[in-house]
């Protein structure tokens, strides 16, 4: 392909907000890592499905449903990769409004699932609006920060960004989705930091958080938290003090540690994780799927998986760094950060480094909304990369 030809293609890509030819210039390393992680996830879920009831219908098995979700997610990623991200960024305020609307509407018309989050059920498919509001937040922040980049060092614009994020996070919290709120908060700081805010502003907010958090912990009763969340926080710090130790969060912590630890160096082998298959491990197919993976694949498998995540995330960050356009860079950075926080917090919870909150692991955990959201983030990063040559 000659240089002129390529420039022509680029021009085309720029002119058409949607162009399937963009798929030719995808970052294949990132795509490969995404597929590798998704396949690892399918295999892990296949193992998890074995312990479900023997006579469960084929289409109700976790891995079968997850294949559907995967297909849907890949489709979504391709769709976004083909679109011009700038067009999407310019539509960000609309996404934001939609997210706020959904978050307000769902508690009124939705229903509550076991984690305590609200779901919206339409056409037989459950939707978690808090998942999609994460994506809306990334786009809105990218829009806001790139628009006011020159003035972001001023405290007023800084607070404006915080307010945009704060409203959405508060709504997610009210929904009862503590996990998503926990992941969304650092995302805001990462994006603010990369957009060139003053370090002292971020430091001040972080310091304030450090002061407020312990205050919050000692005044747990007065916080607008659900009982099960309160118990989880307390039982992280004092697992033995839990009155329903055997049944509640303390039990989860112990059983998860046993599952991970008993994998030892080489693991128990695929499909042979006893903690999972004999039902000692809670929610092994969603939030604690890393425990199942570590039990069956051992330390070696666990490190390889973390290695895959590391490669994926670093590749994503390098794509973000190399984007000459601020909005694109921030979009890619935000998308990668969301995935990174999910990975870090989920594994840290499984390894008993953080209190238990319902938080899935990207690519591995069972769940449609979450997988599709993750793939939307991946699609965003790819879309940013596809168009980077245009600016050079």
């Amino acid at each position: 392909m000659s240089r002129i030809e390529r420039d022509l293609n680029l021009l085309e890509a720029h002119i058409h907000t949607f162009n399937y030819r963009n798929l030719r210039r995808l970052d294949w390393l990132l795509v490969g890592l995404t597929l590798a992680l998704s396949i690892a996830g399918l295999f892990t879920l296949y193992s998890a499905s074995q312990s479900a009831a023997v006579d469960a219908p084929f289409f109700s098995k976790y891995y079968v449903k997850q294949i559907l979700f995967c297909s849907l997610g890949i489709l979504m990623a391709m769709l976004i990769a083909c679109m011009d991200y700038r067009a999407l960024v310019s539509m960000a305020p609309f996404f934001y409004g939609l997210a706020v609307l959904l978050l307000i509407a769902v508690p009124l018309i939705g229903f509550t699932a076991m984690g305590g989050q609200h779901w919206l059920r339409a056409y037989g498919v459950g939707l978690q609006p808090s998942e999609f509001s994460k994506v809306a937040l990334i786009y809105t922040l990218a829009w806001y920060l790139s628009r006011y980049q020159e003035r972001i060092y001023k405290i007023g614009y800084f607070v404006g960004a915080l307010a945009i994020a704060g409203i959405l996070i508060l709504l997610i919290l009210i929904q009862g989705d503590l996990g998503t709120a926990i992941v969304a908060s650092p995302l805001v700081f990462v994006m603010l930091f990369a957009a060139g805010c003053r370090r002292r502003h971020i430091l001040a907010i972080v310091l304030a958080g450090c002061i407020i958090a312990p205050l919050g912990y000692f005044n747990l009763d007065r916080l607008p938290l659900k009982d099960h969340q309160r118990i989880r926080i307390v039982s992280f710090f004092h697992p033995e003090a839990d009155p329903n130790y055997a049944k509640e969060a303390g039990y989860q912590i112990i059983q998860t540690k046993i599952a991970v630890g008993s994998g030892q160096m080489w693991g128990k082998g695929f499909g042979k994780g006893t903690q999972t298959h004999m039902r000692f491990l809670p929610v092994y197919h969603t939030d604690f799927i890393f425990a199942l993976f570590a039990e069956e694949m051992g330390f070696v498998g666990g490190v390889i998986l973390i290695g895959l995540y590391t490669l994926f995330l670093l590749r994503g960050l390098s794509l973000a760094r190399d984007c000459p356009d601020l909005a694109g860079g921030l979009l890619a950075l935000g998308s990668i950060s969301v995935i990174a926080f999910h990975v870090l917090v989920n594994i840290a919870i499984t390894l008993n480094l953080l209190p238990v909150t319902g938080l899935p692991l990207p690519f591995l955990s069972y769940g449609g909304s979450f997988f599709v959201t993750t793939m939307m983030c991946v699609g965003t990063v790819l879309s940013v990369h596809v168009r980077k040559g245009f600016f050079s």
Partner: protein
Amino acid sequence: MTGTAQKKRYEGFEGRVTWLAFALLLALAGLCVRLWELQVIEGAQYADQAENNRLMNEPLKSPRGIIYGRDERVVLADNRAANDLVLVPALCSDPQSVIETLSQIIEVNKDALLADIASAEKRKAPWEQIRVKQDISRTELTLVEERSFALPGVYTVARPQRRYYYNQTAGQLLGFINKILPDEWERLRPRYKIDDVTGRAGLEQQYQEVLKGTDGAMIVSRYNGSVPQLKTDERGNPYVETDSKGRALEVEERIEPVPGGSIFTTLDIGLQRECERLLSGMAGAAVVLNAETGEVLAMASSPGYDPSIYVTNSPDRDTLIRTTEGDPSKPSSSRAHEFHYPPGSVFKVLLAIAGLEEGVINEHTTFGCSGKFYLPGVSRPWRCWRLRYGGHGGVGVVDALAYSCDVYFYNVGLKLGPERIKAWSSKLGLGVTTGIDLPREVPGLIPDPERKKRLAIEAKKTEPWYQKWYPGETVNMSIGQGEVVTTPLQNAVLMASVLNGGRRVRPYLNMELGPQVTEPLFSEETLRIVMEGMRKCVARDKPAPTGTGKEAKIEGLDILGKTGTAQVAGLQHVKHYSNEEDIPYELRDHALFVSGVTDRSPRIAVSVIVEHGLHGSSTAAPIARQIYEYFYLKRPDEPGSASVAQPLTIARREAGE
């Protein structure tokens, strides 16, 4: 260019993203370190915990050892299969109708069963075995098996249960078994499980460790929160297929149990039954020892009880146990070794041996008996039982034994002194435990001055009369009264040494222990004199006075004997009764008789006591006679007898098996 105007990137962007990448790397590395800590450093510990989660130890109970008589033809205690009837709701199409059918053929609690089934369904555990009835009878089993086509999901699970063949006979010697006590279990775990049984009395307790064997185990995989369901095949071997929710389980390892060891006893079950028959209606004991070896051929105690009450499938089990345990006459205790009594004149045998051996008397030493005996400084006399006939006159040691002269032995006792009496008692086995292989043996007591003083000091009684030993106490002691108490078993051991040439035997029930016999403890001369006295005691010589034990006489047998009549209450309580039949039962004297046969093989020593039987001569001696008649003369040719043939097992052992 048609696109929107591009914002120029802020210069620090690349640097800040690089910083974020480093922070991310650090965090991911931290996760790897934690993973290393959990999986590699602490991994083995968690692997153990995971195995504990996954595997369950389903014990395989070892069958309890069998207790035989003298050979395999006599089984005293073995195990039968107790069948528990169970119902699995998942296997019956219509539990309601199954229960209806069941209730038509056997007695079941319909409502309780339906409630159990409902609760199992609610717990999503339809594969749980619901216990319909425990330990069903043979008739019930047959009825259920006949109708099995109409009873889907109903089957039996077998477990071994103790069985005693001879009911009351030798009940106190066999002892009984019952559920382990919580504190006992705390001490014995993990070898014992909380639902184990242990021997609580008799041989069952003494040889608990031998009889128990070693439990095996099935190591079964299990699911969280479910219970493996134990089944038994047609031979009674337990196995596991599913848990209470119907999920298939695997038996990963099966450690077969080691059955408990068998015990062959020295008991001659026919003789034991005869002894118990002779004592029936009275309270008392009869001990028959092989005088040469110390084998316990019979050790009867009346009243008796049946150890089967603890293992019965009768609905009255609890009532039966409560009645037995609450019975004031203590039918479950063996009066032969768990109770002690004053030996009375039986003690004179010991005094005669001690006196002759210590040289304080010889064959020709005589003391005059006027029926009364005075100590210097004591106005009240000690009496001889023949006071109302004017005493025994001048008697030697042979006649003193034969006619049981109290005054003679008052003199012998005073010459010996309490220390020497005690020393000889201990040497010949009175007032000390015999070492029989049964629990709860009491030692009895022979008092002495040192003990009296020690007890007084311990009780802080400083007055001299509490601490000083008085000659009167020695006098009481000389005829087996005062504080002297011995067990009927000890009396039999003393008698055995007279029969076997002065050796002390250790009585035993477990054939395996073998005899344990000392060298002769006194001279042949002493033996000859004492034997002569005891032979004369049983003889029906004329003229009067005749020997006190003449009731035991059997023509053609050389029987030695000594009667004893032990006061229970002081004379002042009973002397106003002119007729002894009027004395209240609990104030009447105990009747004792020790005796033996010298000219038959095996030579046996017999010790009989009848509580409140008034006179050894009239109550106890006839029992001994009937024991000899049964053992030597009327012996039916029945298995397990000590008098007929060599026991099978000893013969086998000698054949070099």
